[in-house]
């Protein structure tokens, strides 16, 4: 299982949980598994083409997947995946 850290605006999908467990061997499969558990969350993270939205950053163990293998980035049990809006919002 992969630990997924969820940003505040997406916690309405996770019942308020700031971290959840998900299954998968790549970032893409973890995101799909998240959507099975929390329907609708994938649409917020990915666009109609299935790509990560421009304003969303996903980190695996602190590394931005844009500099790894994007959605194909492999993950393994015990990894931590963080979903973070690219910019902060709110002033």
């Amino acid at each position: 299982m992969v630990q997924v850290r969820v940003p505040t605006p997406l916690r309405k999908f996770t019942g308020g949980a700031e971290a959840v467990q998900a299954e998968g061997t790549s970032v893409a499969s973890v995101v799909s598994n998240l959507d099975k558990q929390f329907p609708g969350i994938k649409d917020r993270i990915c666009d109609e083409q299935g790509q990560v939205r421009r304003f969303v950053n996903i980190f695996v163990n602190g590394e931005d997947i844009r500099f790894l293998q994007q959605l194909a980035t492999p993950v393994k049990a015990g990894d931590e995946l963080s979903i973070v809006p690219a910019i902060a919002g709110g002033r």
Partner: protein
Amino acid sequence: MSTAATAVRWSVPAGPTSGPFVAHSIVELIGNTPLVEIRAVRDGVPSGVRILAKLEGFNPGGSVKDRPARKMIEVGLAQGKLVPGKTIIDSTSGNTGIALAMIGAALGHPVELVMPGNVSAERKRIVAAFGAKVIFSDPLEGSDGAIRLCRKIIAESPDRYFKPDQYNNEANPLAHFETTGPEIWEQTEGRVTHFVASIGTSGTVMGTGRYLKQRNPAIQVIAAEPEDAFHGLEGLKHMASSIVPGIYHEEELDAKLGIATDEAYDMVLRLAREEGLLVGQSCGATHVAALHVARTLTAPATIVEIFPDFGDRYLSTTLFQSWMDTA
């Protein structure tokens, strides 16, 4: 501590670029920003409807936030809440922090800023260049996380700090009531019919809207906000899911439009390439809203929209990275 903190006062010159004029301090050069007509990115707007963008990036700190920052500090000094030796602290995702850092440096007050760790690299470096101390809050908690952390820091040593508190300080909208509103009224010779601004603290839309409605109650005041809580529009708030600012009074708005991040990003690109205006994400959102309003109009109108900053302080963000892929 510097004696400058109490000695410096400023006046707002009527026209700093016309006739002999030397500013006594950078804070005197805040405001009096230009209006520019949007000629190309109109998307079917009737020809009798003018759209004018107020370019707040011309402020010395590079954004609209210079106005409330100056006013909040001015009022803090006048009320004796900000005295020599006190540190100015606030939570901010960027532009207010830059404004406070700049004004603090000019007046001799130390500045500490609490911001989410994911604000753009340029912003972090600009405030550091002004000598401000930056404290990072958890990026996953967004701007509300910065607000909470800032409260905690102040609670630990309340006598050390002066917190402008832009979300709840009436000096924030007052700055716009006293400057942005009158400037727009004069620059359009009273012809403004609609005012469009994005909402972060809501200070701009509240204060400017209030002034304009006082001059002409028929003027429509429209706010643009992110359409969803999960967005990429730096500086903006989705009100329904946020800690609602104390200065926000929704009943004073004639309309509030939700804008998608992708639509705003695409608009930023078009404004750069079709108008020669390199502006920030919130300007893209604002112009999307302005066009939406403009397309519904059948009579001649003058829409004024606020462009809070220029785009050069977002060059490291995914907005601009995505353009590199399309170049």
